[in-house]
């Protein structure tokens, strides 16, 4: 059309009146967002260009945040149950009434038996606060969702390296040349991983994806390894075997930065066997090559000998490295031995080992940056091995996950690629070894706070949360012989244990942000029953349930009292260095959320609600001597609370004038300073401190300056985890604290101080003959668990989910498009629609996670596709293993950490000879406590 005739357009419209910068909450990645406000209403959300996490990009969920903020499923006022549990019948009550009810339930508990409160907080982004609240209440029963999510990853990383993947560290995206990603669909580091992959693609660096399913990140991988679920550990150990055999290992790195040269007590059958040889100051010993003497490992100017053995009056002691050579040179890990189990040919395993070695050792990168190590040695350059790794729940959500994650860390270490240019880098406050973390605390004194933080890292049987008789002190049985290193608790066992009264009965289940009556639980129907079960006297087996949610979820229907939260744009929040910070590898950072609009409903930020409740309960630390509130609300707490003198929830803009970083007095204007700065605070780590952080003296000094630690904490990587050996020693019968007999073998086998592997088939969850197919789930990028479905935009992308089936299984059962199948496990059966996928491990089926919904929830129509064709695999997974005939309840978890073994599920499949119109099981609909949703919407018409 000739230009003159073209319509006149306004190509420069005003975007909005104001931009308010805050933090996204549509997942735990916590990207910075610019919220555009027009006429007081949220109009448009985009990524914050200056933000260290997302640098301006925004994922689908983040952009759809608007629809979440305006969701029809938002709760509107506190709710008191009026129908049966699970029915969804409620009456709206005032906040005063709601908090009084809560107080009347909780006060007697706090005074007499605080452990009768189980306070679990789901995917909480304020754990340093909620944990503190629970501590002040005095209950030992607190944890967030980590135990069923990815504690294997976190704990294995911290025990081994002093940090794991995701929030603890990331690949050196700008320099790495070969990147290998294990078992990741989306992860919490969602945008940074995508930004990173984009960088690799731009530079032409190679990506290898290890995943039974080739979607998402694996779809763009240059090489895809469709591994058999549960066998990554074996595959990795086979790579290690091959590298060992070829001698392609970074010996220098092992010598300097790991406990490979540590001498191990070689005397058999004592309570010291297999522990480090130590000097009087408890310092592990190494053999100095120069002097031939046995000296503490951190003695300056020595050259530790990794191959030599040391004989003293007691006998022969060998180094960790020798034990490693023993173990990993063993034929059991030879590629041709493992090929069949892992589903990868021996030739290909060798090829990958070769590629890793070639890039690590032949393409090493040199970075002109001087630095000084912890022993005072000055290095002219930073030498990097540009091979990096990332992994997530695909390896951690198995019952062998802890050791698999450890194996991967071992591989990283052997290639010398941790904390070096081009390798894997920590994000502050990591690196932070297990020894720098607290131990678990569980000493209950009625009426008083707990003796310390609940969660932490055990270093041996003495740290277990068991009483004299060996019975668990925590309701979730965390830190017990069943799963000694359960650093994140076991949220998935709380309801089941509370229902069974094992180890004891509780009075009140108080939960926040966890859809435990639906997708957060295994055995969903069973859990719904446990929540509703009554005793003979007509009272509930779990007497009181208090729950906080923002939306009309499935879990809401099971609560007696609902404390409605705001949406993320309506409240204060704090993403703290005391918790899980938003730092990047070269930047320390924390951030806030703040009310960019005010709620138009009778709802309150949950953290402020907790403070209000704490004041009503007169909890120590929340009231002064006169019983007056110390903090008016959460914002006030964020500003004024101090964990240690000068250290508070936020590290930025501290001190009276806001010019202190990390350490400093509370600054009354701190939140405004954050708002002015774009909702976050960040500081680049000085260049000299950016790599080799565990051993880099300028990093260590800087970290102390910033309040990350109070004293410098250099350490070496723990290839050999001595605390694990301590549990084995106990299982061998030494020491005062003894495991129950039925657990001795499990402990001896699983607590190998060197990374190892066992088949998940031994977990009792599978029987390869009857249930030969692996069944797993993946996170869809455009959905967040259950809450995505209330989002008018996102639910159009994922409104239902078929079961994807490999060609082999598809053909074997003669499936065709549109078919339905009966899928069964040892535990249950579901009927579901199926679809073919070829880029899939041949013994695997899978589906998207958490698309299925209970009818009536989330303000959706009762006939919504989510409840008709959407389904959960959770019905087939049980929180307990099938009974072994010993009368005991064995949890379906990793024996070390208690991590829920979601992906151990195996099934069988049968074709159904008709098309169903609803997936089974069909769960009776719940009533909706919120009004009916509008029919058609045209968001944006008012602007």
């Amino acid at each position, binding site marked *: 059309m000739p*230009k003159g005739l073209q319509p006149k357009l306004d190509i420069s419209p005003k975007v909005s009146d104001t931009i308010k910068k805050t933090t996204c909450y549509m997942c735990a990645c916590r990207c910075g967002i610019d919220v555009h406000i027009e006429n007081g209403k949220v109009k448009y959300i985009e990524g914050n260009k200056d933000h260290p996490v997302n640098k301006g990009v*925004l994922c689908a969920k983040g952009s759809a945040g608007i629809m979440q903020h305006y969701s029809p499923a938002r709760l509107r006022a506190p709710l008191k149950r009026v129908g049966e549990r699970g029915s969804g019948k409620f009456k709206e009550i005032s906040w005063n009434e709601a908090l009084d009810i809560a107080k009347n339930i909780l006060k007697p508990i706090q005074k007499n038996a605080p452990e009768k409160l189980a306070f679990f907080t789901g995917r909480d982004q304020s754990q340093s606060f909620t944990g503190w609240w629970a501590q002040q209440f005095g209950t030992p029963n607190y944890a967030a969702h980590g135990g069923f999510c990815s504690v294997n990853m976190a704990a294995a990383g911290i025990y081994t390296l002093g940090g794991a993947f995701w929030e603890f560290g990331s690949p050196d995206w700008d320099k790495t040349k070969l990147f290998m990603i294990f078992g990741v669909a989306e992860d919490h580091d969602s945008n940074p991983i*995508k930004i990173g992959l984009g960088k690799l693609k731009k530079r032409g660096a190679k990506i290898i994806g290890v995943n039974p399913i080739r979607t998402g990140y694996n779809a*763009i991988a240059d090489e*895809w390894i469709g591994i058999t679920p549960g066998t990554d550990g074996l595959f990795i150990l086979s790579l290690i075997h091959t590298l060992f055999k070829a001698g392609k290992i970074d010996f220098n790195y092992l010598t300097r930065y790991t406990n490979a040269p540590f001498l191990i007590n070689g005397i058999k059958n004592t309570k010291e066997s297999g522990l480090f040889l130590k000097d009087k100051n408890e310092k592990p010993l190494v053999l100095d090559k120069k002097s031939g003497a046995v000296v503490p490992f951190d003695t300056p100017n020595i050259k530790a000998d990794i191959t030599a053995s040391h004989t003293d009056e007691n006998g022969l002691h060998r180094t960790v490295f020798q034990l490693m050579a023993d173990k990993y040179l063993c034929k059991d890990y030879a590629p041709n031995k493992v090929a069949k189990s892992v589903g990868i040919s021996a030739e290909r395993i060798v090829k990958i080992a070769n590629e890793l070695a070639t890039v690590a050792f032949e393409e090493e990168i040199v970075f002109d940056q001087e630095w000084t190590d912890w022993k005072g040695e000055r290095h002219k350059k930073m030498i990097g091995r540009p091979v990096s790794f990332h992994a997530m729940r695909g390896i951690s959500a198995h019952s062998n996950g802890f050791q698999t994650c450890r194996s991967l860390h071992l591989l990283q270490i052997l290639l010398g690629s941790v904390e070096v240019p081009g390798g894997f880098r920590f994000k502050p406050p990591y690196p932070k070894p297990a020894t720098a973390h607290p131990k678990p605390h569980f000493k209950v004194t009625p009426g008083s706070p707990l003796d310390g933080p609940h969660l932490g890292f055990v270093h041996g049987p003495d740290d277990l949360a068991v009483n004299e008789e060996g019975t668990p002190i925590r309701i979730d049985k965390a830190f017990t012989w069943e799963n000694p290193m359960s650093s994140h608790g076991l949220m998935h066992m709380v309801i089941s244990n509370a229902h069974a009264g094992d180890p004891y009965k509780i009075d009140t289940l108080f939960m926040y942000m966890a859809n435990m009556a639906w997708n957060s639980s295994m055995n969903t129907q069973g859990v719904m029953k446990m929540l509703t079960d009554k005793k003979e006297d007509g009272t509930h087996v779990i007497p009181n349930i208090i729950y906080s949610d923002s939306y009309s979820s499935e879990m809401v229907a099971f609560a007696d009292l609902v404390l409605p939260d705001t949406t993320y744009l309506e409240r204060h929040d704090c993403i703290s260095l005391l918790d899980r910070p938003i730092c990047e590898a070269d930047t320390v950072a924390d951030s806030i959320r703040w009310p960019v609009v005010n709620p138009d409903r009778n709802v309150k930020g949950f953290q402020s609600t907790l403070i209000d409740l704490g004041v009503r309960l007169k909890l120590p630390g929340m009231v002064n001597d006169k019983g007056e509130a110390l903090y008016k609300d959460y914002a006030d707490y964020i500003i004024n609370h101090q964990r240690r003198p000068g250290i508070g929830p936020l590290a930025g803009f501290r001190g009276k004038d806001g010019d202190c970083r990390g350490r400093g007095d509370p600054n009354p204007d701190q939140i405004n300073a954050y708002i002015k700065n774009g909702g976050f605070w960040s500081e680049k780590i000085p260049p000299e401190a950016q790599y080799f952080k565990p051993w880099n003296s300028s990093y260590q000094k800087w970290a102390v300056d910033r309040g990350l630690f109070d004293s410098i904490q250099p350490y070496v990587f723990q290839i050999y985890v001595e605390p694990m050996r301590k549990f084995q020693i106990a299982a061998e019968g030494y020491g005062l604290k003894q495991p129950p007999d039925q657990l001795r073998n499990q402990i001896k086998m699983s607590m190998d101080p060197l990374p190892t592997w066992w088949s998940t088939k031994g977990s009792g969850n599978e029987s390869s003959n009857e249930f030969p197919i692996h069944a797993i789930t993946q996170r869809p*990028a455009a959905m967040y668990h259950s809450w995505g479905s209330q989002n*008018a935009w996102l639910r159009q*992308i994922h409104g239902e989910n078929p079961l994807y089936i490999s060609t082999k299984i598809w053909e074997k059962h003669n499936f065709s498009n549109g078919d339905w199948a009966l899928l069964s496990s040892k535990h249950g059966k579901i009927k579901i629609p199926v679809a073919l996928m070829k880029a899939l491990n041949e013994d695997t089926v899978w589906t998207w996670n958490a698309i299925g919904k209970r009818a009536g929830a989330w303000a959706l129509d009762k006939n919504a596709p989510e409840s008709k064709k959407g389904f959960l695999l959770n019905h087939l997974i049980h929180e307990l293993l099938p009974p072994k005939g010993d009368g005991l309840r064995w949890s379906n978890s990793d024996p070390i950490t208690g991590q829920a073994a979601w992906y151990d599920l195996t099934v069988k499949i049968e074709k159904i000879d008709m098309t169903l119109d609803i997936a089974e099981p069909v769960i009776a609909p719940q009533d909706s406590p919120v009004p009916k949703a509008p029919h058609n919407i045209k968001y944006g018409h008012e602007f």
Partner: protein
Amino acid sequence: MTSLPKNTVKKLGLAIDLDTCVGCHACVISCKEWNTSNYGSPLSDMDAYGENPTGTFLNRVHTYEVETENNDYKVVHFPKSCLHCEDAPCVTVCPTGASYKREEDGIVLVNEDACIGCGLCAWACPYGAREMDADAGVMKKCTLCIDRIYNENIPEEDRQPACVRACPTNARHFGDFADPSSHVAKLSTSRCGIELMPELEAKPVNRYLPPRLKTDQGSNNLPDILTPMINKVPKNLKGFLSWVDKVLEKI
């Protein structure tokens, strides 16, 4: 009238990198988000919380499964929006003149005030890039974010389409294909950008950068540094350890 300009000064469009796109739908939603409260009528959603939700989207991501050269299978995510064709058939079929291609930059737009909602342009488009909004009854399509790319109320670095700005992997590139020195033109040349359905002669401007040829079974062209080493490294433990010693001496 809806005839096409003989030549446009610029040929603005997108280069979409299929080798990098992870199928995250960020571009889909950011597009919906920007365009529902900007240019023209909102992008409505019918039965939004019901049994059969259908909404207007200007950009959608398809997912394909493709057999590779060595009989492996790979998944390719394929975002699709208007390709701002040079010989846009959607423009010439339009009976009202509502559809037009801008002479200055080649952007194909719908003047919603003149659109009668006959749907003919959507039929004419080979790529499924036009969707009739069920609420407004007018044709919606990708505007190449015309109200962003020239918008003086937006910082200069942000004057790019919403989908490009949001894309976390940087798989979407915006620019002028008429200028051979532009980033997109160069990308397209160096990566052999694909023109979709050339046989229909719409001459799309957008280009798709194909998944790079991969050796899906691992690279064969790497030197094998392991095998010769394996032969040199002694197999028994004692020999292995003393070999390690010798290696360490050299460091």
